[in-house]
């Protein structure tokens, strides 16, 4: 890891020099380094956090709907959680049961977050974060185990209320 980091830092420095960025344009060097590291690793960190995702055509096949647009409509109507990516929407796998159907509680959970003004990524992260109301189990695991859907909806409401502003 140390060698990879040294190479990354060296390449980062070289690239900045090639770009001809002045010291003033660089701003706070610590902030620059922190931001560069976050930008470079964000995709990997989100993937680790959220777990596997399905592309829109996969979900189309899973649900047996007629078009990819129909899948997007389900996301727009808050029936499914979709994450925007540069190459299109992806759908976290945790919202689908082993039979490939979305859990019945998904619309109510997503509705709970509707007024909280939070991004789909933050909602996805909530699904994989242990919740006290669920006995320190993540909502994704709670759903997979077939536990009480009302309770996970209530957990969503409480989290959304704290995030609302």
């Amino acid at each position, binding site marked *: 890891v140390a060698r990879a980091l040294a190479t990354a830092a060296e390449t980062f420095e070289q690239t900045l020099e090639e770009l001809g960025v002045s010291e003033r344009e660089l701003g706070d060097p610590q*902030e620059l380094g*922190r931001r560069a590291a*976050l*930008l470079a690793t*964000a*995709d990997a*960190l*989100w993937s680790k956090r959220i777990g596997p995702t399905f592309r829109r055509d996969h979900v189309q096949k899973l649900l047996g709907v007629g078009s990819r647009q129909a899948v997007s409509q389900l996301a727009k109507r808050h029936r499914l959680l979709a994450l*925007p*990516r*540069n190459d299109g929407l992806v759908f976290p796998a945790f919202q689908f049961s082993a039979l490939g159907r979305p859990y019945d509680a998904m619309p109510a959970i997503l509705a709970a977050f509707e007024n909280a*003004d*939070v*991004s789909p*990524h*933050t909602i996805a*992260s909530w699904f994989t974060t242990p919740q*006290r*109301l669920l006995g320190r189990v993540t909502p994704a695991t709670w759903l997979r185990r077939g536990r009480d859907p009302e309770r996970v909806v209530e957990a969503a409401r409480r989290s959304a209320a704290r*995030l609302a*502003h």
Partner: protein
Amino acid sequence: VSERDVARRVLSTLSVPQDVGLADCTESSALAFGVTAAIHSSESYERTQEWAAAFAGAGFGGIRYLVSHDPAQRLVGVALFGPADAQDGPVADTGPIESDVITSARERFGILVLPTPA
């Protein structure tokens, strides 16, 4: 947490219009009134709302408590009693959530703020 969600929020310091007497649930002597540490982390909102109603009935204007999202139970919160929803109070200071707060949240609670695709 998505960076966008942090950028869309601000941190404000508000002052209360008048002095408020708080029921201090962080004091050991509160035990004499039946308060235990469970009040800080109870998942039963009905129970904590009963306590709040009792304190309000006894003339308190709010409570001082240990916030449940701090497992170390060192952070203290204050809740003021009053009507539901947002209140118009004098805002002493307001501004964006600065990077030192974000760093502190990461170091203390492991909350990572990350950029997301547009």
